[in-house]
């Protein structure tokens, strides 16, 4: 690969690492783009081409994934929403339902025996939401 292509991928990786790390903070696309040293529009296109999701969708997926773990551990929906950096319960519930195919309270209240049987690091990866058509554990 050409050196500039590697530089672009490295910059995108640093922005993705920032989302993985700071997902619970107020994190907007211009801040992520600045980390990658790109304009927001260019960054969004490049990020999606590289990681398959827009930066905002990636961050929301990450937040919902973390909230699923908190809900499984018995945390209330409101607390889980705030804990992962979402400020509106309504839009958190909408995103959660859109991404996982069930409501946060429905998810919280049902059994999670399959996930409990897995090592925590495996559970984290298999429960990471992908689309509503994917089997949920």
């Amino acid at each position, binding site marked *: 690969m050409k050196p500039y292509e590697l530089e672009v991928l490295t910059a995108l990786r640093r922005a*993705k690492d920032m989302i993985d790390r700071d997902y619970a903070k107020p994190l907007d696309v211009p801040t992520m783009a600045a980390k990658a040293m790109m304009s927001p529009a260019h960054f969004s296109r490049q990020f999606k081409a590289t990681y398959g999701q827009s930066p905002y969708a990636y961050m929301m997926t990450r937040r919902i994934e973390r909230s699923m773990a908190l809900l499984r551990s018995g945390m209330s929906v409101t607390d889980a929403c705030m804990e992962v950096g979402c400020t509106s319960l309504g839009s958190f519930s909408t995103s959660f339902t859109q991404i996982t195919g069930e409501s946060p309270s429905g998810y919280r209240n049902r059994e999670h025996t399959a996930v409990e049987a897995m090592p925590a690091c495996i559970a984290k990866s298999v429960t990471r939401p992908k689309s509503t058509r994917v089997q949920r554990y």
Partner: protein
Amino acid sequence: MDISLQYSHITVNDVDEAIPFYRDGLGLRVENDVASGEHRWVTLASDTQPGLGIVLSDPHAGRSEADGNAMQELLTKGVLPMTVFSTSDLDGLFEQVRATGAEVLQEPIDQPWGPKDCAFRDPSGNMIRLSQR
């Protein structure tokens, strides 16, 4: 019958760029440096675990141009599988690795599932996690 892990391979964009991270940061010993054409295979060893070799090589070593490029893209995107090391002094090792200028992904914390650990990117983008033994 017995069995143990002998070699583990870590692909890096530039072997020379990677050595300070693994040698000065993680404290591994450079044991072997084998060149073939423009490619190199550098074997690292740990005195704590005699017999285990960690082999650094570049994405195109032993691969076609297309396969090497695909590997290099995954590596640089940071999505290749991580490698996890354990230590009896996590805080000390964390500081030693950080002193090489490595990207910190996570400072040492107690994870809800048990271990205390931290994480870095090596200079090529591999995730290296360290956990307290």
